């Protein structure tokens, strides 16, 4: 007998570190909601550990990290390590939005970031990427 299954894409929009600009994060949160996602917003100034805690406990399919401070090279790998520690690394789609210089992209991707969306990326592109790549939960 088939059991009725109800699945929504769950997404954590995370602001990490000291940068206090969350307009972008707010806009994205709303766009994700309107796309039918369930969005958890972390709030400002979160430590990598808090982001990991939220991502693990909320069992999100997608972790979107918004970062404008320039500290991505230290903060993002810390989050990745944390996800690994709780076995959440493999099946969480991690995307980074914000100002990431070209020369840093490779390093972040090596750390496990699945995609980086710079300023001016159309919202539809990000949403489409998530819809196409969000892990399937059984």
């Amino acid at each position, binding site marked *: 007998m088939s*059991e*009725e*299954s109800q*699945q929504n894409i*769950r997404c954590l929009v995370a602001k990490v570190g000291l940068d206090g600009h969350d307009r972008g994060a707010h806009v994205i949160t709303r766009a994700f909601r*309107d796309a039918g996602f*369930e969005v958890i*917003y972390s709030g400002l100034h979160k430590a990598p550990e808090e982001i990991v805690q939220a991502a693990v406990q909320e069992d999100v399919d997608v972790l979107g990290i918004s970062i404008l401070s320039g500290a991505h090279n230290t903060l993002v790998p810390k989050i990745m390590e944390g996800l690994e520690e709780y076995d959440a690394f493999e099946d969480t789609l991690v995307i980074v939005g914000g100002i990431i210089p070209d020369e840093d992209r490779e390093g972040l991707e090596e750390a496990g970031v699945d995609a980086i969306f710079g300023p001016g990326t159309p919202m539809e592109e990000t949403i489409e990427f998530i819809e196409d790549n969000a892990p399937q*939960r059984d």
Partner: protein
Amino acid sequence: MAPDQPELVEDLLDGKHRALARAITKIENRSPGYREVVSALYPHTGGADVIGITGSPGSGKSTLVDKLAKQYRDQGLTVGVIAVDPSSPFTGGAVLGDRIRMASTATDMDVFFRSMSARGSLGGLSTATADAVKALDAFGKDKVIIETVGAGQNEVDIVKTADTVAVLVPPSSGDDVQMLKAGILEIGDVFVVNKADLEGANRTVTELRNMLDLRDGEEGDWDPEIAETVAESGEGVPDLLETFDDHTTWLDESGRREEKRHTRYAEELRNLLREDASELLEAELEARGGIDELVARIDAGETTPYELADDVVEPVRDALADD
């Protein structure tokens, strides 16, 4: 331990956070196999005190939950929180914002906070919440807090699954009739006038007291308490905690805990049966070409919804009558 126990359940009972998170997702999504998981968790439940917190938007629920969690942690107790937020009936999307308030216990993994959206459909929200609570309970949490907006039957149903129910009332929210209408007065074990530093708090306490006095309680019933807090600063929270403990003690001593549990099991069984039955009937509808096909006959004036319903249910009725 049963050998056929799902691996997920074993990991959960082993204290793996990821497994707990995954189990709740399964429960929430009604994924295939979720029933086996909940069923396997069942024998491990019963250890947690479940506290339901409800109140109008902006009454300070999330902030209070944060302070409560902190206080429990200071006592060395572990805490699980399920925060339910409404979802858009149009897109199904939701912004689950309660987590932002959990500042006091950030990075403390012994507070397991989970946001859930009220995914409109099927009305199984209270079942899903109750099952998620079981997962937290089986995981070994000492206290489980359910937080939900106190508007509508859905939320009242959710919060009713708790052992102790706290209703938050902001000062000067005045309108007595509104509260009675919502059926909120009947479900509260503790009424919390939060933001008690604001003007009108005293009046609200008096009004509440008056209204509670009008309740027809039976002999031996719990007499609802009124507490005053300022969740923002944590004022009054220790007293509130004590009141919760008093209620827990009363539940045990009066035998009401068993009674409540019995009622809850009955409700659960009913919900499951209802879910199953409606699924069977959905399948039957599909087999008959789908609901639109049938309704077309009503459109054409050939039959009525009553006749059709009778017709569709008939085989089920016959099968059950045979037993």
